[in-house]
């Protein structure tokens, strides 16, 4: 697509706030002070609630061994299977008699690990790729964007199932799959930011001063392009946790008895809604709250980082 006026509202794909009009502002306006960002973030109650939940979740993950009364693969002996919540088993027990509460607690480790590592992988590839394309421009940009076109043209889920089929079923395979499919939109966002930023005076000045390309890209431009990356990255962690559930449902997620929330929900299946809803409900709730928290924090960060919106 060709746009006559570069500052017209040609949105970078996937920026949740919509529109890249902010890019120029960011660069020209002085960087908002960190204190301001924090203040603005704290003024958003939903974001604060989300953030608090995430802190809580991280603590649960770290101290899972202390919190969980049983191991995640451990079965009650003698067997107590499919029992509803009780004082002994807060979230009840699942079909094979494992404590759902313990599994959800240990699951926080797995799900956070999948979310964070997959997003880190996607960000690393996406930022490198996008910044190179955006900074160098010309045929390099065209070439690199054609590559992303090719991969974007394959629906993500088909790509993901295909890669997962090749790698087999495990936690790490899921991380790899999500990382390898997640970088595409990031590279687009980064590229769009770089295209706008590199034309600004201070970059031209840096170039004139003879700074190296790498230094200009990563020291001068990247910090100014971080906003959408941070926001997108935050939401991505949540999406990765959701994707794990989808892959599990399609039979290419982690393997039992890994206490991944998505796998637990997928294994519980539709049937448990009527007969033993707690098996589906608690891990489902954990996914829901976690993803919601990441989205709300992402929203809060976007508003806080983009002073224009207030």
């Amino acid at each position: 697509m060709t746009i006559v006026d570069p500052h017209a509202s040609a949105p970078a794909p996937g920026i949740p706030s919509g529109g890249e009009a902010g890019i120029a502002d960011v660069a020209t306006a002085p960087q908002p002070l960190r204190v301001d960002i924090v203040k603005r973030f704290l003024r958003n109650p939903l974001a604060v609630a989300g953030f608090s939940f995430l802190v809580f979740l991280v603590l649960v993950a770290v101290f899972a061994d202390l919190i969980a009364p049983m191991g995640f693969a451990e079965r009650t002996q003698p067997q107590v299977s499919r029992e509803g919540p009780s004082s002994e088993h807060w979230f009840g027990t699942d079909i094979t008699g494992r404590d759902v509460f313990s599994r959800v607690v240990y699951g926080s480790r797995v799900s956070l690990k999948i979310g964070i590592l997959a997003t880190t992988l996607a960000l690393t590839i996406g930022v490198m790729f996008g910044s190179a394309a955006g900074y160098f421009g010309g045929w390099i940009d065209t070439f690199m964007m054609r590559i992303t076109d090719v991969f974007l043209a394959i629906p993500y889920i088909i790509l993901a199932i295909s890669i997962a089929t090749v790698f087999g079923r495990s936690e790490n395979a899921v991380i790899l799959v999500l990382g390898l499919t997640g970088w595409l939109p990031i590279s687009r966002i980064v590229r769009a930011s770089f295209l706008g930023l590199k034309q600004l005076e201070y970059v031209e000045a840096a170039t004139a001063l003879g700074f190296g390309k790498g230094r200009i890209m990563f020291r001068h431009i990247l910090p100014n392009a971080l906003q959408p990356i941070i926001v997108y990255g935050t939401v991505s962690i949540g999406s990765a946790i959701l994707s794990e559930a989808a892959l599990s449902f399609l039979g290419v997620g982690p393997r039992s008895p890994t206490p991944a929330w998505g796998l637990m929900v997928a294994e519980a299946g539709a049937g448990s809604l009527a007969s033993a809803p707690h098996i589906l409900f608690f891990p489902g709730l954990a996914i829901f709250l976690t993803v919601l928290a990441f989205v709300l924090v992402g929203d809060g960060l976007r508003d806080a980082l983009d002073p224009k919106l207030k």
Partner: protein
Amino acid sequence: MPSYILRRLLLLIPTVFFALSFLFFLFFVLPGDPAQLIAGGADRNPDPGVVARAAERYGLNDPVLVQFGNFWGRTLQWDLGESFINDRSVNDILGEKAPRSIRLAIWAVILEIIIGISVGLVSAIRRYSLSDKLATVGTAAAAAIPAFVLGFILQYAFAVYPERHNWPDWAQMKTSRLGPDAWTFFFIPAEDQWRYLILPAITLAAVSTALAARMMRGSMLEVMRADYMRTARSKGLSERAIVMRHGLRNALIPVITLIGIDFATVIGSAVLTETVFSWPGIGSQIADSIRSRDLPVILGLTLVVVITYSIVNLLVDLSYAWFDPRIRLGQGAEV
């Protein structure tokens, strides 16, 4: 404009070519022996005789590049090959299943546009109101439920529960399958087809609708601060007129992009949705075929999905010009 469209259509060719070739090599080269895959799969240990027969039958003994050439040779003649599993022609599978998926996708996009845009609009106009807050949490929530769980819940709430409590027929939705397969104008459900359609369509639309609403809100807020809006207000136009005449049109642009880009998400959700609701379309077929490593079916169906996706995105780009006269296509430097 026509030359722009032509250029974009030409660009489609390498995109589709490389996308399909990538999948071809992903399946044929990476995991080792494809005959092994047909006969068993990764980390499995099928009988060597079986592997040999599979290899011979599907020409897998040829060098990979020869196979690759054959694959494209066939594909260019629109012969998508035959399923490894049941020898059905992929063209037939496609002809049978594609319309079903397209109908479902059409309704999902209709829901996405109507609900997504109106919720986003109301949310932006009544900013900080209770409805805005509800919309914010609601859209975040809709995007936070795994699609298949939403499917389970809808099935239970609108099909199983009503049946158990003897609700009248029209209030009972259907949980699975295609139903009578009766349509007028290709996509308008006839007879009681709508009862089969509605739950999968909602499930398919959920995530996209939430994203569209959030995008619409953000975009609308931004537009409302724009200079021309201030000008319009200073002219004394009613707020309603301002919003409808100036704001909406501009705010829609990024939302339209999202819907275009989101088409891939819809297809992704279709794999899940069609599986949950036993909707016999392309999505569930692709999921099945990938699991059984039915390469010709995967490649054939993906080819069509990729082409459709690319064309939708082209249409999205073209629609910019209509929504925003400042954007002209096909001229000037690429940005």
